[in-house]
């Protein structure tokens, strides 16, 4: 896919999305944490986020590699969740939030005028910290997004395919009409992943997807992520450093800067690189101290 003909339209067959033409492209260049040659799934350029006029995340520039797992790590309040929410414009839902800079999704600035955030979210799904199934049947949960989008294919097939991809099918195939609320926490989270992938997104954002789960359910989610990255770009925010080390290909370390005079705090991107490098030979002292548990 070349930048010239990049669109936000899904290349996947089932869902018809309006095509949004490229608003801007930038040649790969002096962007921190690059180091790969494929076209990035996302490119943030001088991305800053403000809440109520105060900066919360400052001038982040980074590329997200497609079909890889990118972990965002850092101490509480460093802007991890703020950053991940920029990738599908979830910050739009926060009153008083303002975004500066660019987030290019396959070359298209998703914050450009005329871009419909709903379209963005169809391409960029999200899984939250606490599983949040709808109080409906397992089947209806998975089919929900597709139905809203006017999906014209075979719903049963879509449900089965999505549940299989989310490694939940075998456990629920005989109870598809049962309430989703009766599932265990780990099963509910995999159901939410199935729901997210049923609308055929390109990227899945995961904000602490396993922090409310027990170790066995956590391992299942981590295994699932490895399978999903064959088809999707995944960005995960996690407090669990070992989890970031285990699952991710690239890791971004965010850190909180404080203005001593005003006590204002904001997040900055300190270091971004291959996960192996971040956990064996971090370049920045602050990364070193954080990953080795000496602060945060």
């Amino acid at each position: 896919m070349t930048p010239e003909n990049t669109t936000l339209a899904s290349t996947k067959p089932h869902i018809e999305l309006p095509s949004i033409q490229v608003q801007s492209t930038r040649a790969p260049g002096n962007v921190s944490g690059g180091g790969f040659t494929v076209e990035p799934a996302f490119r943030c350029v001088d991305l800053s986020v403000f809440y109520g006029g105060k900066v919360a995340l400052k001038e982040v520039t980074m590329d997200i590699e497609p079909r890889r797992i990118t972990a965002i790590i850092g101490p509480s309040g460093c802007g991890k969740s703020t950053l991940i929410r920029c990738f599908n414009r979830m910050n739009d839902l926060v009153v008083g939030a303002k975004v500066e800079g660019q987030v290019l999704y396959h070359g298209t600035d998703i914050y450009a005028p005329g871009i419909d955030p709903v379209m963005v979210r169809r391409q960029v799904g999200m899984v939250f910290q606490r599983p949040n199934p709808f109080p409906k049947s397992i089947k209806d949960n998975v089919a929900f997004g597709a139905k809203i989008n006017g999906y014209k294919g075979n719903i049963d097939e879509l449900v089965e395919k999505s549940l299989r991809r989310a490694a939940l099918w075998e456990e629920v195939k005989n109870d598809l009409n049962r309430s989703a609320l009766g599932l265990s926490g780990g099963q509910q989270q995999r159901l939410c992943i199935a729901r997210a992938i049923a609308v055929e997104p390109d990227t899945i954002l995961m904000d602490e997807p396993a922090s409310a789960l027990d170790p066995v359910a956590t391992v299942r989610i981590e295994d699932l992520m490895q399978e999903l990255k064959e088809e999707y770009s995944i960005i995960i925010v996690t407090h669990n450093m070992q989890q970031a080390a285990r699952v991710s290909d690239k890791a971004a370390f965010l850190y909180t800067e404080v203005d001593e005079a005003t006590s204002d705090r904001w997040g900055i991107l300190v270091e971004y690189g291959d996960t192996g490098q971040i956990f064996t030979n971090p370049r920045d002292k602050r990364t070193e101290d954080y990953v080795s548990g000496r602060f945060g």
Partner: protein
Amino acid sequence: MRETYNRELDALDQGIVRMGALVEQAIEKATIAITDSDEALAREVMEGDDEIDDLFADLESRTLTFIATQAPVASDLRLILMVLRAAHDLERSGDLAYNLAKVASRHVKMAELKGINTLIFELGNAARRLLGKAIDAWSGKDVELAIEVQKLDDEIDELYRKLYRQLYDLKDPDLFEPALNAVLVGRWYERVADHAVNIAENVRYYVTGDEEFLA
């Protein structure tokens, strides 16, 4: 933060310094035992090897426990890996000191080899000094000193070649046994120096994180 963690990390780091001091002493005593034909000193070195082996086993076991329970990363992980490697190099060096002492205990009359005895003394001293420098580099995580160790290794190699040539020139069947032992002794010192160089490379890997020094 993480006080217990830091304490154990320091203890493992210092374990190498302690083990290094014991091995350095063993090499020094073994050299004297050989060149002075001091059998009592040779026995002391051979008996002392158990302490080095025990230290090695202890360091290895604690290192594995540390990895399993503390999951170190970044420079801590590099240090732990280097502790394992350096401990192994020192354990091997300790075994070489044992071999050297064993030669001295077997009534091999090195002193009969004119000039050779002095050369062995020189080689033994150089190998011990090199090991000492490597341990100093470890202790201070001193890259400059580590580089010096690598350069000094060439001198040891040269001394070993010189020893080999002189022994070759002896051509005296009566001196066959001491000469054969002298070749082995020279080779063992040269290997002690190689272990010292490994330790110096460990220091460079630890400090720089550059995997070139892992080779």
